[in-house]
């Protein structure tokens, strides 16, 4: 027989004014298994907790019910007190007679409140009788982190974790880290040069003792759970030995073949052996195997001849390396919607209709035009440029419904850059709203309009076409109400910020969720903005939605704080509310496997000594299970139960209702 102690709290007048706690305590004392029952003014106070401990000792209690406030308020308090007095904390339950009884039933005759309190407490007592002592699960934590994506967000996260004294593996799928920020010319709102602030960070990441860089690499497979991930990384063949290469660049100069540069978004060419841009980190070239005649047909081989250290290796193949980490940061960034998506704006066919990211390259002093604004079709300096905001954004019919958040700002920046470089040129901006909600942002866009002479037109552009070497822009100015036609020489689309191609596949590999636009989902938009629902996997930067550099960097640092927090203890304790399978009953229907939102259930093969399979059954991975209980209800054989919320416990509560 159980030895349960029941403690009814008055909470000053909070409970007592509508519940007769004495009567509740007396009734409970009558129940089988209850060996002690009392009421008290403030249970959570130090003397109240002392009373619990004393009673446990005195009456040899093996279970405690505190009928008081919501368990969300003081469950931890009383479980701790019980533990201190030698009762398993999971043999302590609270009956909520305040939030869900005394506070919502104002009858001062205490009739309704007392009756309901009796029911609630009795249900809790019956439930407690079925409680099993549980042990907190402790998981060892591997104190190394994996960062996927070497844009500014990923670099920041990696640096902060490394500075915190932990090892970081940084995986970048391009030949160099830097991401989109490396493409930018100057950055709003302070107009500092992007390369100037980014390059030092890239170099720092390369040289940091705690950071291991894998560029030209991709995450192939992720196994395990918080604190204990095993990650397979594919190091794509570079055809250049990273140990031997000195970065002299001789091969780049001598290679006779060219290809469109990905980094310059097709505005310039690169060699077949190349680094994406001069400040690349690491400064080790890659051979574009598909375009190299040596690798394809055995002809050429010039780079091998000119390479002093003998770093060229045409025989290199992809390598799979395995790394063990405790936390994963996803920072895979964004891309912009390509111009080919815009039928009415020429669908990628009009050469002088470009995206904002192309414009960044034109404006960048390290870009293909050396920082001069020249239009792609004929290198002419355009005497008028039309900027079209919300291109593809806020367009639920043909584009994406959301606002891309950064394009109002960078368009204002573009008009200024253009004005500085082409002083007698005219910038026109078609906008619907100007979204400049940041520190010194509004002032920035106003400067473009008031001081730098950009003509802002409130309306959307309906059509762009070519006529006599001009780009004709037809739209509306809704403030005057009129249709507008502008004969421009170049058009810049503030193309929507969209998720990376393949983001969904990466999410599936990691077991994190994403929205309909394939941006990764944060755990909670306000209170857990860098966590995912999967323990140990975090987000930073634009892979979760459009944002600018300050936000991406803040997230990178925030995530580092979270990772370092996770790494601060040797082991991680977590609530033992997890499911487990009774393998004898399980008939391997896999309904639970399908139902579990956390892919926490595996198919287990049990073999005999000869290695023959004797049984297959479901098996819950404690590390991954979050204790939702979906599997329990899904299992038709009743082979799974959820610790802390077993069928027995629930039925016990219902039985005395």
């Amino acid at each position, binding site marked *: 027989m159980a030895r349960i102690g029941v403690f009814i709290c008055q909470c000053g007048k909070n409970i007592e004014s509508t519940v007769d706690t004495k009567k509740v305590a007396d009734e409970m004392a009558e129940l089988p298994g209850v060996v002690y029952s009392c009421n008290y003014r403030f249970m959570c106070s130090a003397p109240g907790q002392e009373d619990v401990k004393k009673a446990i000792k005195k009456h040899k209690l093996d279970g405690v019910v505190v009928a008081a406030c919501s368990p969300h308020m003081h469950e931890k308090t009383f479980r701790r007190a019980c533990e201190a007095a030698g009762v398993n904390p999971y043999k302590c339950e609270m009956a*909520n007679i305040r*939030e869900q009884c005394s506070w*919502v039933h104002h009858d001062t005759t205490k009739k309704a409140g007392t009756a309901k309190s009796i029911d609630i407490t009795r249900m809790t007592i019956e439930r407690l009788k079925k409680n099993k002592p549980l042990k907190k699960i402790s998981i060892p934590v591997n104190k190394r982190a994996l960062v996927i994506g070497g844009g500014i967000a990923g670099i920041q996260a990696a640096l902060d974790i490394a500075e915190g004294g932990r090892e970081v593996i940084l995986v970048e799928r391009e030949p160099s880290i830097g991401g989109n920020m490396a493409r930018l010319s100057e950055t709003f709102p302070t107009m500092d040069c992007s390369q100037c602030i980014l390059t030092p960070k890239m170099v720092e990441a390369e040289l940091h003792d705690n950071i291991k860089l894998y560029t030209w690499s991709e995450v192939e497979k992720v196994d395990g759970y918080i604190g204990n991930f095993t990650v397979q990384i594919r190091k794509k063949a570079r055809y250049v030995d990273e140990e031997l290469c000195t970065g002299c660049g001789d091969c780049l100069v001598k290679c006779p073949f060219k290809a469109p540069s990905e980094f310059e978004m097709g505005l310039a060419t690169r060699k077949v052996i190349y680094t994406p841009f001069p400040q690349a980190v690491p400064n080790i070239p890659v051979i574009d195997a598909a375009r190299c005649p040596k690798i394809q047909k055995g002809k050429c081989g010039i780079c091998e001849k000119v390479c002093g250290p003998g770093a060229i290796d045409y025989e290199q193949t992809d390598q799979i390396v395995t790394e063990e980490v405790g936390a994963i940061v996803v920072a895979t960034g964004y891309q912009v919607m390509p111009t080919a998506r815009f039928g009415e704006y020429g669908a990628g066919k009009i050469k002088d209709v470009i995206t904002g990211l192309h414009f960044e390259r034109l404006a960048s002093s390290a870009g293909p035009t050396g920082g001069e604004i020249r239009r792609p079709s004929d290198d002419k300096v355009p005497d008028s440029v039309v900027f079209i905001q919300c291109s593809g954004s806020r367009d639920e019919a043909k584009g994406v419904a959301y606002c891309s958040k950064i394009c109002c700002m960078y368009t204002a920046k573009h008009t200024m850059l253009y004005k500085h470089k082409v002083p007698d040129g005219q910038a026109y901006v078609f906008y619907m709203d100007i979204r400049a909600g940041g520190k010194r942002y509004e002032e920035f866009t106003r400067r473009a309009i008031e001081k730098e002479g950009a003509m802002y037109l409130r309306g959307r552009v309906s059509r762009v076409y070519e006529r006599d070497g001009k780009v004709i822009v037809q739209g509306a100015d809704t403030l005057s109400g009129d249709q507008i036609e502008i004969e421009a020489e170049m058009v810049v689309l503030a193309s929507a910020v969209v998720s990376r191609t393949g983001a969904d596949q990466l999410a599936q590999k990691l077991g994190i*969720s994403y929205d309909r636009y394939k941006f990764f989902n944060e755990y909670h938009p306000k209170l857990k903005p860098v966590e995912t*629902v999967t323990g140990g996997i975090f987000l930073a930067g634009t892979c979760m939605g459009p944002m600018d550099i300050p936000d991406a960097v803040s997230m990178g640092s925030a995530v580092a704080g979270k990772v370092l927090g996770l790494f601060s203890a040797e082991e991680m304790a977590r609530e033992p509310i997890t499911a487990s399978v009774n393998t004898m009953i399980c008939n391997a229907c896999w309904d639970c496997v399908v139902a579990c*939102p*956390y892919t926490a259930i595996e198919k287990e093969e049990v073999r005999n000594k000869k290695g023959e399979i004797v049984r297959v059954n479901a098996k819950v991975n404690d590390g991954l299970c979050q204790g939702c*209980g979906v599997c329990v209800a899904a299992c038709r054989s009743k082979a799974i139960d959820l610790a802390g919320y077993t069928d027995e416990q*629930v039925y016990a509560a219902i039985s005395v*209702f």
Partner: protein
Amino acid sequence: MEKAVKETDEKLAEEKQPGAAAWEPKIMAFVCNWCTYAGADLAGTSRMEYRPNVRIVKLPCTGRIDPLFIIKAFENGADGVLVSGCHPGDCHYTAGNYHARRRWIGFKSLMEFVGLDMRRLHFSWVSASEAIKWVDLINSITDDIKKLGPFMEYRGLK
């Protein structure tokens, strides 16, 4: 235990003759820990008032709720049952409430088939901030079921 059983039996006897005493319906609510339980707590911290007829069983997620719980509740004297959790898309466990909903649709048609008056069985979404919705829900369910009278069909089936 004896006393508890005796008391229940007494109540049962009373309910079998409606009108003999002022009958009050009993409603069992299966709620999730994160949304509806917290919403009900908020009704308390905000000192709202609602009918005292509901008894709550807290579960981690509506996805944990087995249709048998509902049948057991009716067997044990519930006159109405409420299942409530997080709104679609808000589930603490990403998709638990989605599973619950799918299961619920099947269960509901089954119960309709066996002839249960569907006014006795409710499925709702109440978020942690929707104290008012919780209050309104409990009041309206209580009043509806009061009109229907006690539910005897499943009692004592166990």
